[in-house]
C-alpha cells in the first residue's frame, strides 16, 4: 500500500505544477510558494486515498453480506447491491443454530462475549494492584518488577502457546471457555498495567495524603478515592481488553478447535471459511456480525480509548 502515495504524488505534480505559470506571465513561484501549493494539493490526494483504503473494504463487506451468492458470482466487480438482489437471508442463515440448519453464530456470539467479559474482569483484578504499586509506592524491587511487566511484551505468543497447550491438555481444560480467558490474561495484563500506570501517576499525591490524614488505610484510599477517580481509565482499559479478547484467534484455535459447541465467533468464521460448503456471502454476514460489536464499543468510547493508549506519547 505504501507505494501508492508516491504515484499519486507524481499525478499531483502534473496537475498542480505547471498551472500557475502557464496562463499569464507571472513572477516565478518561489520554492516556498510552490511547496505550499504542491503539498496543499497532495494533502487532499492523501486524504482521499486514506478514505478509500479504510472505507471501501468495510463497505464491500457490508454490501456482500446482503446479497445472494449468485449476484456476487454474476458481477464480482460491483460495489453496490441492487434492490432486487437485496436479502437478509444471509444473516438469518448465519445466526440460526445448526439444529435449525444455520451456522450457529448466535451461540458463538455468546461464547465470545463470555470469554471477553471474563477476560476483562480477570485482567482488571490482576492489573490494578500492580499498576497502583508500581506507579505510587516506593518499595524494594519496584524497578525490577516494572521491567518484568514490560518484558512480557518481548515474548511471542507462540512461545506461550506450546506449554499452555500441553498444560491445558493435561488438566483437561482444553475446550473450556474460562480456561481460555485465563490464557488471555497473558496477552492483556502488560498493556493494562501500562495504561493504568500512565493515569495513576497523574493523580496528585496530596489527595492520598489528605485521605491518610483523615485516617483512611491504604486499601480504603485505593477503593474510595483512586478507583473512582480512575473510572474513565478503568473503562478505557476494560474496553481495550475486551477488544483484544474478542478479536483473539490463535489460542481459540489451539484450545477450542475440536469442540464446535464452544467456538468463538472469530474461530467459527475461520473454520467455516476454510470449507467450501458455506457460501461466501453468508460468511460475509458472519464477518459483519463479528465486527459490529467491537466497532460499536470502540466508537462509543473512542476519545477515552485513544487518549488512554497514546497518553505519554505527547510527552515525547
Amino acid at each position: 500500500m505504501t507505494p501508492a502515495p508516491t504515484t499519486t504524488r507524481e499525478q499531483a505534480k502534473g496537475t498542480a505544477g505547471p498551472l500557475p505559470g502557464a496562463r499569464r506571465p507571472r513572477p516565478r513561484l518561489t520554492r516556498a510558494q510552490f511547496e505550499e501549493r504542491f503539498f496543499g494539493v497532495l494533502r487532499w490526494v492523501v486524504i482521499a486515498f486514506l478514505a478509500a483504503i479504510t472505507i471501501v473494504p468495510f463497505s464491500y463487506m457490508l454490501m456482500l453480506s446482503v446479497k445472494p451468492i449468485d449476484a456476487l458470482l454474476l458481477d464480482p466487480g460491483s460495489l453496490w447491491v441492487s434492490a432486487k438482489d437485496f436479502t437478509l437471508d444471509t444473516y438469518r442463515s448465519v445466526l440460526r443454530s445448526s439444529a435449525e440448519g444455520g451456522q450457529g453464530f448466535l451461540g458463538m456470539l455468546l461464547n465470545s462475549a463470555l470469554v471477553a467479559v471474563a477476560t476483562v474482569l480477570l485482567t482488571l483484578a490482576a492489573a490494578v494492584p500492580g499498576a497502583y504499586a508500581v506507579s505510587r509506592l516506593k518499595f524494594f524491587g519496584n524497578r525490577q518488577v516494572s521491567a518484568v511487566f514490560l518484558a512480557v511484551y518481548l515474548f511471542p505468543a507462540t512461545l506461550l502457546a506450546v506449554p499452555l497447550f500441553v498444560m491445558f491438555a493435561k488438566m483437561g481444560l482444553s475446550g473450556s471457555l474460562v480456561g481460555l480467558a485465563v490464557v488471555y490474561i497473558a496477552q492483556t495484563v502488560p498493556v493494562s498495567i501500562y495504561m493504568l500506570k500512565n493515569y495513576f501517576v497523574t493523580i496528585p499525591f496530596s489527595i492520598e495524603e489528605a485521605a491518610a490524614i483523615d485516617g483512611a488505610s491504604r486499601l480504603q484510599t485505593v477503593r474510595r478515592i483512586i478507583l473512582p477517580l480512575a473510572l474513565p481509565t478503568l473503562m478505557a482499559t476494560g474496553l481495550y481488553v475486551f477488544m483484544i479478547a474478542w478479536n483473539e484467534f490463535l489460542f481459540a484455535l489451539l484450545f477450542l478447535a475440536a469442540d464446535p459447541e464452544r467456538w468463538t465467533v472469530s474461530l467459527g468464521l475461520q473454520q467455516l471459511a476454510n470449507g467450501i460448503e458455506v457460501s461466501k456471502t453468508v460468511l460475509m454476514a458472519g464477518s459483519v456480525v463479528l465486527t459490529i460489536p467491537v466497532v460499536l464499543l470502540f466508537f462509543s468510547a473512542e476519545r477515552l480509548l485513544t487518549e488512554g493508549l497514546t497518553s505519554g506519547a505527547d510527552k515525547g
Partner: protein
Amino acid sequence: MSTTRSGAKKRRVPTQSSSSRENRAGLAFVTPTFLVVLVVVILPILWTVLLAFQNARLVDIQVNGLFGRWTLDNFSQVFGSPGFWSSLGTTLLYTVGSTAGSVVLGLIAALALRRPFRGRGALRAAMLLPYVAPVVAVSFVWEVALSPQYGIVNEWGHKLFGWEDPIAFLSTRSYEVGLFGIHFDIPLALLTVIAFETWRYFPFAFLFMLARLQAVPAGLEEAAEVDGATLTQRFRHILLPQLMPVIALLSVLRFIMTFNKFDDVYLLTGGGSGTDVVAVRVYDFLTSRFDVGAASAQALVLAVVLMALLGVYFKFFGRKMQEEAA
C-alpha cells in the same frame, strides 16, 4: 487526630516507619499481579525452555511429566532443516516491510490530518477501523476481494488496467513483472501479506504520531516560517526531530509485534507461497506433527533472535533515545 500530633513531636520515627510501611504496602499490592504474571507468562516460558531440550511429543509429556531426557536433538533438527533458514529470512522481510510500511503510512496520514478540515473527525474515526476490526473478519474480506474467481480487485484490474489473467495474490510465490522492458520476479504473496499488515496497523502509528504532532508548540514552526523556511524544510528540521522519539518507539513496538505475528499470515495464506514465517511453522509443528520439542525449540530460537536484534538496536540507538526521554 492524636496520631498527627504525636507525629509532629517525634518527627524521625514516623517517617522511617512510614517508608517501611510504604515498602510493605508496595509489596502487598504488587504481589497478586506478579503471581498472575508468574503463572500465566513466566512459568510457561520457562517450561518452553525445558521442553526445547527434551525429545518430547505430546503423548510423551502426558506420561513423562515435567522432566524428560535431556537432548539437543531439537536444535540440530531445527537448524538442520532447510526450511528453517528461509523461514527466518521470510520473517525478517515480512517484519521489516510491515513495520516500515505502517510507520511511514501512519506518518503520512498524521501529517495530512494535522490541520482541521470538514469531516476530519469522521475520517479519523473511519481510519481506526482496520485496527479495531477483528483480524479474522478483515482477512476474510481481503481473501474474497483478492480472489481470482470472484474477487473485486481482479475484476477491476481486468476492466481498468486490462489484466489478461486473474492474479492469485495470495497463492503466487513469485510473479513476473515487466517494467520498462525489464522483467523481474516479485514475491507476490509475501508483498500482499505485508500490504495487509501495513493497512491494519498504520492507524496505530497514526494515532501516536498525531498526538505527538499536536503537542509540538506552534511557535516553533511560526518562527521558522518567518525566517523563510519552506514546508519541507520545516518538516525536515522541526517536525521530524520532534517526532523522532515516537517514530523510534513505534518502530520497535511494531517490530516486536510483527516478528511474533501468527494470525495475519496464517489466516491469509496459511503460510504457503513463500510466506512461511517462523510463528506459523511453530504452529504446524505443534498441531500437525505433535512435535512439542521441535516447536518449543523453534519458538525459543525466534525469541532469542528477536532479543539479539533488540539488543543490537538498543546498543546503537538506545542511549540516544534515553537521553531524549530524560
